[in-house]
């Protein structure tokens, strides 16, 4: 039965590995296209880790299977053998191999991470205000005056469409703010989102942008990126926020620059 264990283990290893390489019809078992300027760094980090871990996964499972196969065919009275070198090769190779991999991945990965989350947005980034609430995202553009109106929690009224709690009567800057339910942005232009929540923690996740950021009540959280491909993508909430969590989503529409300008003018005219 030890041999059976070895065979089953190796089969499991092979079949598991197959699906890390073959991603199903239309690649549904894999990452979608990368539509962001920084995404290649994330993908590269993922692939490096995949190769290193993949090798370790396959090697260790096969080695385990091999040793089990050998060890269950030994005769009565067998005098056990210690692995050559004893525990020392294990300690040394673990420290060296894993240590080097950790150092390399950390070094490169920190740069990728810092590029997304620790660097300031470009000065000409288009600012967009994002509000998350049970169970929808809303997006706000500053309008022709380039200024966002203040938000007031006590003025939030979903029934009348005042999702952000704006006060256009007393706040001039609020009068031309454009509020929409899907995020429309121009391609190849830096975007700066400022995200806040009106109730519980939500999260902003766009697979194609390789971006995820929790939206925490009480905090104003910046997130900047540049989309490099046009198209329609899904923004989904990834932080459990209540019964509507699974349905909480918005569309991200990335438009060519000219079309975006048209769209924005249209929205401003409607305010």
């Amino acid at each position, binding site marked *: 039965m*030890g041999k059976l264990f070895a065979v*089953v*283990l190796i089969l*499991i290893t092979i079949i598991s590995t197959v699906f*890390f390489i073959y991603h199903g019809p*239309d690649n*549904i*078992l894999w990452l*979608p296209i990368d539509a962001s300027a920084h995404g290649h760094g*994330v993908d590269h*980090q*993922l692939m490096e880790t*995949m190769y290193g871990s993949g090798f370790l996964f396959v090697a*260790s*499972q096969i080695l*385990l299977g091999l*040793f*089990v196969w050998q*060890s269950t065919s*030994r*005769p009565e009275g067998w005098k*056990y053998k*210690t*692995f050559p070198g004893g*525990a020392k*090769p*294990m300690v040394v190779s*673990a420290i060296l*191999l*894993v240590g080097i991999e*950790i150092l390399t*991945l*950390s070094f490169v990965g920190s740069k990728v*991470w810092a590029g*997304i989350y*620790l660097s300031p947005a470009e000065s000409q980034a288009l600012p967009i205000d994002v509000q998350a609430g*049970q169970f929808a995202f809303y997006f706000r553009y500053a309008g022709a005056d380039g200024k966002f109106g203040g938000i007031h*929690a006590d003025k939030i009224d979903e029934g009348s469409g005042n999702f952000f*709690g704006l006060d256009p009567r007393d706040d001039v800057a609020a009068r031309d703010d454009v509020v929409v339910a899907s995020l429309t942005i121009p391609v190849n232009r830096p975007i700066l989102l400022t995200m806040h929540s009106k*109730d*519980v*923690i939500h*999260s902003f*996740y766009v*697979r194609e942008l*390789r971006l*995820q950021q929790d939206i*925490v*009540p*009480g905090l104003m959280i910046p997130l900047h990126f540049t989309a490099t491909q046009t198209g329609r993508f*899904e923004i*989904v909430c*990834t*932080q*459990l926020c*209540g*019964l*509507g*969590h*699974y349905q909480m989503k918005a569309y991200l529409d990335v438009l060519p620059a000219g079309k975006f300008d048209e769209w924005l003018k249209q929205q401003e005219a409607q305010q």
Partner: protein
Amino acid sequence: MSEATAHAATHQHTAPTGFFRKYVFSVDHKVIGLQYYGLGLFAVIIGMILSWLMRLHLGWSTLAIPGLEKLSPVGAPGNVMTPEYYLSLMTMHGTIMVFFVLTNVPFAGFGNYFLPIQVGAADMAFPRMNMMSFWVTLSAFLVLMAAFFVSGGPPLSGWTAYAPLSAIGQDAGPGQGLGQTLWAVSIAIFCVAQLLGALNFIATTLDLRTRGMSLARMPLSTWAWFITSVIGLMAFAVLLPACILLFLDRVAGTSFFVPSGLVVSDRLQPHTGGSPLLWQHLFWFFGHPEVYIAILPAIGIVSHILPAFMRKPMLGTRVLIGCMAAIGFLSYMVWGHHMFVSGMNPFSAILFSVPTLVITIPATIATLLWIGSVYGARLRITTASLFCLGFVSVFISGGISGFFLAQPSIDTYLHATYFVVAHFHFVMGVAAIFGMFAGTYFWMPKMIGRMMNESLGKLHFWITFVGVYCIFMPMHYLGLAGNVRRYAAFTDDFLVPLIPVHQFITIAALVTGAAQLIFLFNLVWTRFRGPKASDNPWQATSLEWSTTSPPPFDNFGGKQLVVHNEAYLYGVQGASGDYVMQTSPETVAQD
């Protein structure tokens, strides 16, 4: 000192008389250990049924599940699960499994039964406090179960109970009323029991070792329980106040975790000045060591059992102890890796990532030691040894996915996807459980004096081993596709094509779950029909095999054992048999 206290312990309590003193309100660590095991068994059955309900709904979201409406008319009208009820079942599944199964059985269950025996003591250092720990744990369980039956139902904020969702109260939605309050109370009570238990384990290990039982001669399972209790003392000491603060936010109008200006269900909430991230820091400062509390005993148990079936000592026994200690120490430095995208300062993500990756090193060393130990052995295949070998395999699988998640630049994509679900289920839901199965098949003869059925055991192993890979390996692929977790149903454009994968997983889960009935049947069969076990059916060396099966109430019949040898003298040439027990004064040629 050790000798005097050990001697004193043999007179700590006289033999119990009467049914209640013997089997219910017992101060005997063996009875208490079995009580914890029984509670864990009951809890895992409930937890598993919850997972079946969840998986059925995920595969077929409009499915009418017979009987569900009886359980909750509001949660499942017409027997079809509502999204909020899905989240409630998910919350209870996680809470029950992490606390009442994974913290309970490997540590409180097996640890209580075997730690005193393995160090040669007559009982734990504080037998009455030990009894109290169990009853407090049971109370915590009952309080949690009550959440199913109160109006509003069980909480839906996940086992992680992030604030403000968990702190606001009824306004936040169904289940967030009394159900969530009961959750906070239950877990706080559980913390108290764990703290008392940890104190007991530490005192027993340090003070009640019998003559000759130096720390270096303690079995690996004892080391694991000892290190786990040290970790547990500090971890539960943080969760307890966190739950109290949550409770206060909910019922006393405080605002530890809730900032001002929140509008929930169209109502402006009265709180002001709190921080949702504070809850996460407190919770994960506990939560990360907690998962090592779940896995370390399994590591110790597997490392203790394998030598008996390889007939050779583990490669690097002392190195393995060092690895367990390193993992325990490092576990306190990594909690922020659950919070990379939480909104905390992104620079701290880099700081937390480094020790998270460094923990890979002792874990890799341990894995290589197991694999290297099998080399050159003469392996005896029993159900216990199969589960040990299976443990190594699934520990590798689960550990490797952790390597991805430890890096913030990758976690930005994989956070809150099924990749995370795959990772923690492999290490906790599979590896730790395999450790418990291995412990059961190995130690059941000692605990109840009867051998378990090996054919049933092996059948149980094979279906379970293949089954868990069918359930959890595909979750990695779903995660790479960005399949978000904690969704009650899959309606987004990119998720709909993945539903067939979920259906496959559900079927695998149901089949694997059904196979656990074989285990349950085996337990019952063993109790009534199992062949009587000898004192040492596995020809093993540690102190539990130096006494009867089951042991007498004071473990060694009033004798004080003297230990002459380290714990794993197997494959010894020139000994009578191929092993030397720890108590044997026999001197042998050491190779």
